[in-house]
């Protein structure tokens, strides 16, 4: 299978890659483009650690072909912070102890970012529903809910 050229925006920068049709987006991001913030967990679209933002919606990058990202806009956890420092979602996860081992955190952060864009003032119930595609094996869910709630308040004040 000949490799094919794709081009897409990754965290605001235009990037190019040569990919096999069977290559998954998460591998292109991690191995070809060397952004290893996006993790690989279950690889069968259950756990959510590979969550990235694709054209304004959260997707699991282990279940999207790299070819399918051609021409799109992708944001990973590396795209959250800017020159002014950490994103409100990241700051809230630190302050509310929204992580223990940290393995699930990139997916949680990118998902929380998009969830709060879609629903800026959620109830705890809505947060549980909106974050239900991301698993934390340390089971620190309470603090993750608190962190998303706190991030919502920070973003509203900003």
């Amino acid at each position, binding site marked *: *299978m000949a490799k*094919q050229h794709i081009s897409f925006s990754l965290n605001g920068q235009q990037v190019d890659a040569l990919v*096999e*049709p*069977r*290559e*998954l987006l998460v*591998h292109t991001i991690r191995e070809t483009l060397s952004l290893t913030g996006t993790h690989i967990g279950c*690889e*069968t*679209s*259950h756990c*959510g650690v590979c*969550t990235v933002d694709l054209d304004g*919606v*959260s*997707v*699991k990058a282990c*279940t*999207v*072909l790299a*070819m*399918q990202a051609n021409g799109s806009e992708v944001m990973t956890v590396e795209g959250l912070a800017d020159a002014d420092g950490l994103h409100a979602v990241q700051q809230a996860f630190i302050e509310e102890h929204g992580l223990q081992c940290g393995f699930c955190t990139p997916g949680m952060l990118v*998902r929380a970012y998009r*969830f709060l864009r879609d629903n800026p003032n959620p109830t705890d119930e809505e947060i549980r*529903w*909106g*974050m*239900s*595609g991301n698993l934390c094996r340390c089971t620190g869910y309470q603090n993750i809910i608190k962190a998303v709630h706190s991030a919502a308040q920070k973003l509203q004040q900003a």
Partner: protein
Amino acid sequence: MIPSGFEYHAASSVQDAIRLLTENEDAKILAGGHSLLPMMKLRFAEPAHLVDINGLRELKGIDRDGDVIQIGAMTTENELIASEILQQHCPLLVDAAKLVADPQVRNRGTVGGDVAHGDPGNDHPAVMLALDAEFVIQGPEGERTTPANGFYLGTYWTGLGEDELLTAIRVPVIKTGTGYGYNKLKRKTGDYATAGSPVVLTLDSDVCREIRIGLTNVAPMAIRAEAAEDLLRGQVVTEALIEQAAEQVMAACDPAEDLRGDVEYKTHMAAEMARRSIRDALARARS
């Protein structure tokens, strides 16, 4: 885990997709990919060609024309949930979509993929049986429509030909006097049903004029519990009759034992999901 090699084709139109299916042996349609790609990683499926239809805008969207709602096959689960037309005129589909997988998967997973894949664990097939939906299919010979009833033949086996493409689904508007319910038992968010049962029924002065009871993941394919329906049709539905119908639901079940439970457990849970959905549907039909 990555799938074994295949040739990737992005279809430029429905006709192009059918041409690609016809010209390439062992070609599969790639819709949302959230069933097919995991199967390909695990080598349960190794198609030589993938025909990606994600670029086909004509396969998206939800429109109502009188008493019929037409849903493009590539409409995602989250688009079903967000649809005002469905919220107002066919809320059963909204309720069912909310029970499918998780938020990220619902952004990619499509109603057409769910319907056409033939997995008995998928939620929409039994819902489409309960709704008496119709499937619009394009093939080399042109367009045809076929009822959901009779479409499901076995596990990963449907009435869809290898060179055909499901393009749309037609469901009736749920009118006053008609009630619905979908209850699904699952171990966790994102899991397939241990057992599920969608029900649609129509009352006429409290007499059940029409009823369809679907069953999810308790047989090789989505099925209807027709003997249970026959018991309730033409009757005032009492708790005692629901109990008799539940017995007939259990008789219709033929589940496979797996980590979600053994045959007896799944059979009993299917009956309980059906009881709850019948009660939900009755309450809604009366309101």
